[in-house]
């Protein structure tokens, strides 16, 4: 019954039952991520790119660097924009057209992780203060939706940023001239998102599609490289108790460390 979105009640019951016994339908532990596969430099013409497969979920990220004007309140800082596309190819639920609220939420949560951890040293992206800076476009393309797009996208975005190179330039008479050669985009932090789904008062890490369809609520914690929380996002209609959130934060720290080893090689 792949054509309809809701999950049969029998299956909902079974998932909740298994989780209360510490098991899951796909035989993972409650705090286990699916297998992560990572490729970088997959798009030749982009400044940076990466493709992440999280189980069957697949996200591709391309990064473009352009020269533009800074915001007037931060004249000496580069600009970061994140955009997400949920292409109809990825899921029967996705429709063509302008980004819907889910796409916007996805982009904003990924953006928040990168921005609030100060992963990109934006001061170094300034060319002429107040006039010209580099703009970093992070474009997320969801290629297959099997749950937990946030974590997969955050990982892919980070891997792509680490893979990004900026063209060299020089300033002559207030004009920017592009020189041959490239320098690495200055990345100083490595934010990793860890998402929890709440199903019947229990938390599971990295929910897959069916679990997302039956969950009461979702909670994303983004951890920077010092183990500090740099972004949070809550979704769905359910609620969380204080203890559960503290418990989740501890698990997130541990999981983020494991994932960071995969994403940040060397």
């Amino acid at each position, binding site marked *: 019954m792949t054509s309809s979105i809701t999950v049969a*009640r029998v299956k909902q019951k079974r998932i909740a039952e298994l989780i209360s016994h510490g098991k899951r339908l796909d035989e993972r532990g409650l705090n286990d991520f699916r297998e992560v596969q990572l490729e970088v430099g997959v798009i030749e013409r982009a400044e940076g790119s990466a493709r992440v497969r999280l189980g069957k979920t697949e996200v591709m990220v391309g990064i473009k660097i352009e020269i533009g004007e800074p915001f007037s309140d931060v004249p000496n800082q580069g600009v970061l924009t994140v955009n997400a596309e949920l292409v109809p190819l990825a899921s029967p639920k996705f429709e063509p057209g302008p980004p819907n609220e889910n796409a916007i939420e996805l982009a904003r949560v990924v953006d928040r992780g990168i921005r609030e951890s100060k992963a990109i040293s934006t001061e170094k992206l300034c060319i002429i203060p107040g006039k010209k800076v580099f703009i970093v476009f992070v474009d997320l393309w969801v290629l297959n939706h099997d749950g937990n797009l946030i974590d997969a996208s955050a990982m892919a975005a980070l891997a792509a940023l680490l893979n990004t190179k900026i063209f060299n330039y020089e300033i002559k008479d207030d004009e920017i001239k592009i020189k041959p050669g490239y320098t690495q985009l200055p990345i100083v932090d490595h934010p990793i998102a860890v998402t929890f789904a709440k199903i019947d008062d229990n938390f599971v890490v990295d929910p897959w599609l069916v679990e997302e369809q039956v969950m009461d609520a979702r909670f994303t914690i983004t951890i920077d490289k010092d183990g500090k929380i740099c972004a949070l996002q809550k979704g769905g209609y359910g609620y969380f108790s204080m203890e559960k959130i503290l418990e989740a934060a501890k698990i997130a720290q541990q999981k983020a460390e494991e994932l960071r080893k995969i994403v940040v090689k060397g």
Partner: protein
Amino acid sequence: MTTYFEKRQLVTPGDLLAEGKYRAGENTYKDDDKIYATRIGIANLEDTTIYVVALKAFYVPSVGDMVIGKIVEVGISIWIVDINAPYLAVLRASDVLDRPFNPRRDALPAIFDVNDLIIAKLVAYDRTHDPVLTVREPDLGKITRGQIVEVTPTKIPRIIGRKGSMISMIKKETKCQITIGQNGVILISGKTPEDERLAVMAIRKIEQESHTSGLTDRVTEMIRKEKEV
């Protein structure tokens, strides 16, 4: 009269399968006296008919099939059921009740509600009408417990096996009750979750290796090995 494939060979759409006085069976077409494949699958020859068993396909409804469907809508006098086919099926209220249906007295959601799973039988279907279901036979009706496994409908004959050999072996080895819907939905209910897990594993193995021979023995072996652990 020549065939251009070996027994159980994987073919792709457009592959020339045979030339001569053959009949074009499932998933093939005939151009003059040449037969070509229209789907990715395993080519077969039976008597003079050439057909392709598709690796993956939608369920095509057929009268008399037992299917497992999900209620997606409750109407005034009917339920709409998703049976994994290109068309939604209909279950009539008068079919479920023993008496004539009276919309003032009988509330349909109290019988089957949205997201309930039902085992039903297809009683009518043709190209002009949506499939019609019935639950007025023994063992049909609402599913209240058990585990659901979904496979591509073309694999169902392989899971059943020749004269039911495969499925009866799985039932015997895992001590689970297994109901197979022809639409690729399988219901497993066992005494323990461990038994059910074994049955699911067996079905997944068959799904993955359905094109190989000697599968029953290997599945038996796998279940026995898993049971010892």
